[in-house]
């Protein structure tokens, strides 16, 4: 296993992605919409402008939160409590949906794209091993989604602290659960999703087919990740650790199996593969 070659494959794929503005601009917009634009306007509406009736209704909804979650909510006023609850609990799924969507889109095209462009021939004849190529492609697919999430998470933290922080006695975000979710729970879900998507990308005949199939595969996974993330944020301290550990075990198994899907024959697009 030559890690240098793996990173070369990943770096070259990422370089091509950077060149493809038509691809990354919509993705950047998606990230900024979910991590910055929507949270900013929603939180500023609730905490600054304050339609008393609406805020009152949302604050009543807080009663439906689990006890552990409700105990965390800070703030003396309904606006502050609502802002806090929205910031910590409502936007959690965003942190899951954005990276999975972006990485799925990148991953779906990565191997079948080599074949369609004819560059799979170059890789097939190169000394790079199939495991090196697979892991390179995996990293190249994972980085855009996860990087968007990390950047978005930073921006989101800033917005939340600037808008809601003054109402609840200072900067409070990210909470411990959010750290666990971003650093421990999200990566394995991303890896599971990508291991499936790369397998599809290696097997299907066109990028369009890969995108469609990847959408079907990743959608249930997004739903699972969504529910698990919510549970992580609502649950007790040990829940995210367990959920993350289980997800990592599944991810490692799935990645290991996924290596077999990349063959030189498939890079060439030879019939009967």
């Amino acid at each position: 296993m030559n890690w240098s070659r793996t990173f070369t494959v990943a770096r070259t794929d990422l370089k091509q992605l950077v060149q493809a503005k038509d691809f990354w601009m919509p993705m950047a917009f998606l990230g900024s919409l979910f991590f910055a634009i929507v949270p900013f306007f929603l939180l500023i509406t609730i905490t600054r402008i304050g339609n008393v009736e609406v805020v009152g209704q949302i604050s009543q909804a807080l009663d439906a939160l689990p006890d552990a979650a409700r105990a965390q909510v800070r703030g003396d006023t309904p606006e502050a409590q609502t802002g806090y609850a929205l910031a910590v609990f409502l936007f959690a799924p965003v942190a899951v949906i954005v990276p999975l969507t972006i990485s799925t889109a990148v991953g779906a095209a990565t191997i079948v794209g080599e074949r369609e462009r004819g560059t799979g021939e170059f890789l097939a004849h190169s000394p790079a091993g199939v495991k090196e190529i697979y892991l390179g492609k995996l990293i190249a697919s994972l980085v855009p989604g996860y990087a968007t999430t990390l950047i978005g998470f930073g921006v989101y933290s800033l917005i939340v602290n600037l808008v809601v922080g003054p109402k609840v006695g200072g900067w409070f975000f990210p909470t411990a659960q959010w750290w666990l979710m971003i650093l421990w729970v999200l990566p394995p879900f991303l890896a599971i999703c990508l291991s499936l998507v790369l397998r599809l990308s290696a097997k299907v005949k066109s990028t369009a087919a890969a995108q469609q199939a990847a959408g079907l595969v990743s959608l249930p996974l997004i739903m699972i990740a969504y529910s698990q993330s919510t549970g992580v944020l609502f649950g007790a301290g040990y829940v995210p650790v367990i959920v993350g550990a289980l997800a990592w075990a599944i991810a490692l198994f799935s990645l290991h199996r996924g290596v077999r899907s990349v063959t030189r024959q498939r890079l060439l697009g030879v019939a009967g593969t």
Partner: protein
Amino acid sequence: MLGAQLRILLQLCVCSPITQSVTRELIVDLAAVSQWFGDVQALADLTIQVPKGSITVLLGPNGAGKTTAIRMITGALSPATGSVRVFGLDPGTPDGEQVRSNCGVVSAKPSLYDRLSGWDNLRYAAELYDLGRNADTRIREAASQFGIDAALDLQVGGYSTGMKTRLALARSVLHDPELLLLDEPTSGLDPESAVSVLELIRDMTGQGRTVVLCTHLLLEAEGLADEIAVMQHGFNLLSGKPDELAQRYWPTPQLHITAVEGPELDHVANSVGVVSYERESNTATVGLQSLDVVPDLVAALVARNVRLTAVVPFIPTLEDLYFAVRREQGTAADEITPPSNTTGRPVRRSRVAELAR
């Protein structure tokens, strides 16, 4: 005196073709290799041997299995049956990495990353082939060798077909491979660029490399091939040195004689020194014991008031050889990509007359 004789004797031994064929190291050895893609048989007991330092040309129509053979050599595909040895190693095993590290491949489509610059394409290859610190120097040298250095900073998507081919060739020699595998390297090029690329290929063998060139363009292989293998339906119809194969098909010198009235030429059939005769329309193909009899033949025809328009010694080209092989195998000429007959020589379609002396 004795020393000089010994030196001459040694030189004769070293230069003897027989000695060479026995001792020359084989770089590629495909033995009875077969491969199927679904129900289609791509290779059928293909046997090809490529000696070190030679240019071996795989000739054949589209679908003959040339590209599959190249893929077998690098281990990109594994044979269903038969054995593949390259540099004495099996490329289908973990030794394949070593084999591929010593191969430079130019595929029919240049296999370049259009969104990247020429430099980035070469850099990618340099890193995959572990060139390390020498990478930048080698990139500049290879780009300069193929005259593409001025365009390295441009995105490959904007390159012309010729530039892409040059870049692909530069990439193939970047790691100084022992074996070059070129699959239709002049495909899509204008004649000027194609000639230029062929010259570059010739130069590369001058540097001691072994080349396997796939083509269906016979003129492309003419003068370039040390060894040829004529392929069809994944099978090697014939292989060997072009001169030896020509000798096999045309064991005696041949002459084309054209006259205003074709039938008047038939007198030649009974002349001294003529071993075979066939005529199509106004042109006769005459097999001779020796070219020395040509003046007498011409004089005899002139004496009979035969009005000659051309007397041309026939030197078989690769094209002639190719069609002769295919005719022998009973394959229809219209199955293949027709080569451009620029030689002006008549293509024999049917035996018009065979007159015994």
